[in-house]
């Protein structure tokens, strides 16, 4: 195939790009472009990708190990929790550290001050433990296949340049890794050059609240230089706490998302978007939500387990005897960017995953039921707990 030939021809220039990110698979910076900060070619087909700020989410994206530029992801969440918000914060923080231009739609500015900080170099020493844990997971679930293993090798590679480059300034483009690890208990120190815009919705009830947003995005995209990546973050779209009542009119919301799609199509190598949607208010069984999903390249659904808050302590010292944290919810993959549309990527055999949000990271694992011996015990425990709980309540 013709694109394979191109890969071979350009591998040499990939090594010279100075970002010290050279996964073993052949890669192609398309054409002879200068490497953009935080962008690397997909190991599968060479299209430029960037990190979502969450390692396990990157690994989920059909083997591209990053979000392909020019695509958007919709994260739906049911219930009152804000796991999607954590993913969006990681996404924003990653963008700021990479020097991307970050646009946040509809939120007040203090959101920017609450972004998680990156884990410093000295604290990276904990890393090896995580690696062994991941290795075990990869061994246990062979179906994880290529990308599980791929993440491991790549992460290990990353730590090397990080550790050798300890003395250099973290802001310098040379030493910036593809992906950072964030700590939710820390606050992000914004780099001096960071560009973070908060775009407010129009509140005029007679017209679309999204007009100012699209105008802002369009002008800032046309005015910016070609080496600026724009990250669009739209938290809790349509949530009545942030959005005026008319915003859920199909003619407004669908046109807005179509507009975002147009921008992504017009600037396919400079823009990515992430959107979260509260499902409790807008169920997936409604036609409007289905259109919202169809207008995004990737669709993930988070369904937190209702008992996860009090189940934590029980299961962690439970039968498995591992240090794995119990899953906090179910993550379902409904559509993946690039893979479903264009067929390029590693197909996944399952759509059901679990997620765990800890202080450090958002982990996505295959959804497996625990072994039976342990299960009875855990079930008893949780049944006891439920019994106690109901006793107390009634």
């Amino acid at each position: 195939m013709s694109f394979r030939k191109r890969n071979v021809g350009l591998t040499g220039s990939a090594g010279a790009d100075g970002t010290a990110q050279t996964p073993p698979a052949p890669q192609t910076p398309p054409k002879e472009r200068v490497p953009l900060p935080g962008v690397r070619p997909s190991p599968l087909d060479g299209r430029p990708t960037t990190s979502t700020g969450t390692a396990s989410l990157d690994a989920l994206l059909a083997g591209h190990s990053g979000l392909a530029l020019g695509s958007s992801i919709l994260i739906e969440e049911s219930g009152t929790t804000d796991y999607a918000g954590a993913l969006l914060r990681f996404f924003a923080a990653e963008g700021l550290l990479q020097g991307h231009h970050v646009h946040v739609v509809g939120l007040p500015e203090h959101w920017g001050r609450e972004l998680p900080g990156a884990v410093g170099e000295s604290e990276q020493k904990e890393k090896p433990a995580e690696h062994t844990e991941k290795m075990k997971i990869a061994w246990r679930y062979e179906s994880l296949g290529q990308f599980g293993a791929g993440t491991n090798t790549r992460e290990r590679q990353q730590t090397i340049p990080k550790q050798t480059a300890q003395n250099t300034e973290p802001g310098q483009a040379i030493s910036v890794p593809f992906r950072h690890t964030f700590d939710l208990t820390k606050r992000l120190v914004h780099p001096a050059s960071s560009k973070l815009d908060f775009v407010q919705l129009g509140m005029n009830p007679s017209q679309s609240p999204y007009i100012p947003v699209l105008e802002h995005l369009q002008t800032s995209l046309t005015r910016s230089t070609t080496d600026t990546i724009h990250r669009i973050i739209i938290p809790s779209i349509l949530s009545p706490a942030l959005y005026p009542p008319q915003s859920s009119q199909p003619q407004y919301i669908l046109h807005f998302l179509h507009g975002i799609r147009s921008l992504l199509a017009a600037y396919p190598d400079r823009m990515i978007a992430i959107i979260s949607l509260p499902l409790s208010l807008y169920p997936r069984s409604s036609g409007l939500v289905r259109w919202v999903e169809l207008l995004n390249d990737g669709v993930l659904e988070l369904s937190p387990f209702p008992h996860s808050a009090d189940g934590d302590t029980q299961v962690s010292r439970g039968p498995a005897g591992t240090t794995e944290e119990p899953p906090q919810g179910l993550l379902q993959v409904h559509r993946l960017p690039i893979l479903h549309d264009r067929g390029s990527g590693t197909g996944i055999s399952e759509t059901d995953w679990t997620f765990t949000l800890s202080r450090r990271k958002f982990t996505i694992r295959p959804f497996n039921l625990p072994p039976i011996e342990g299960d009875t015990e855990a079930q008893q425990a949780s049944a006891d707990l439920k019994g106690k709980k109901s006793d107390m309540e009634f």
Partner: protein
Amino acid sequence: MPSSIPVPLAAYIADCLAPDTQTLVTSVLTTPSPWLSLRLLYATLYGVDDGPRHAQQTGHEVVFVSLLRPLSLWAEMGKKMGLDFASLLRNRRITYVDGLTGGIPSTAATASTIEADTRQLPTTRPRSITLKDIKDALDDVLRRPSISTSTRPTPSGHLSSSRSADGVFSPRIPPATASPFARSVGEKPLILIDGIDFLLASQPSVSPVELQSFLATLRTKCHGLMLTCQADSPLLHWSSTSGPGHETPLERNHAHFLTGLAHSARWVFQLRGLDTGSAKDVSGVIRVSRGGDRGMYDGVGVDDSPDRSREQDLADGEWLYQLQGDSAVRVWARGE
């Protein structure tokens, strides 16, 4: 290189190329339809048989309206299956109406590097994605001199070459020598509209009837009409989930529109996910079934009798398909 058109589907796709045919492709969230649209496009341009490609010009010109997907996607996927969008657009074999980047000023084209090649191609951009503007853009395209809008009946000589599989209606002219006849003056283009239902969803002021009458008008001006729509269950089965009376106008209109389209289509290609979950080596299920447009040829004329007998030979069918990384598609029956 294997044939671009999957073998099980070839006969159906060939039948969709008959004059005055409407074809409907429906898809759901997990099984988007671009690969099938491109194969229909390929068949229209080059015929179903994977014969000598240099004898091109056997097929029709295509007006391709894409409302939801960027040209870069079509070009990327087309390239892998032998459709060179750049040259097809320059030769005016395809006229591309870009409903996605309609509102974006074209100065953006200079800014980016990666897709620069697809940017400079001649495409038509409607002013906005409203029914009126799309209508205007299409009228404009159809009026252009390279594509004749003559209402004369289409001479069918060029068409026959694409159906050599048919014994009854075998081509008198082999494809290679058919080329001089292909670009006859009276030839009408085929129109392929991707995501026509978005017009309905995004504009509550447009009624399904209005959109249907637009399509009916369009159908008189073109050789054939191919449409892709979404058939996700929330958009269709509103009555079963939330009970009657709870559906929104969006869902009601979509269901009415899609049902109407299926009734006026000759063939309906349905793409959906596996009912039993997901698998690594199966992208989805394709079902080809007859639309409501079979009575149209009854008792029309002698010319159509081969069509009818041929159509009756084709039974509805269901296959599994897998979209592979190099844009090849494997289609096979269950158990094969």
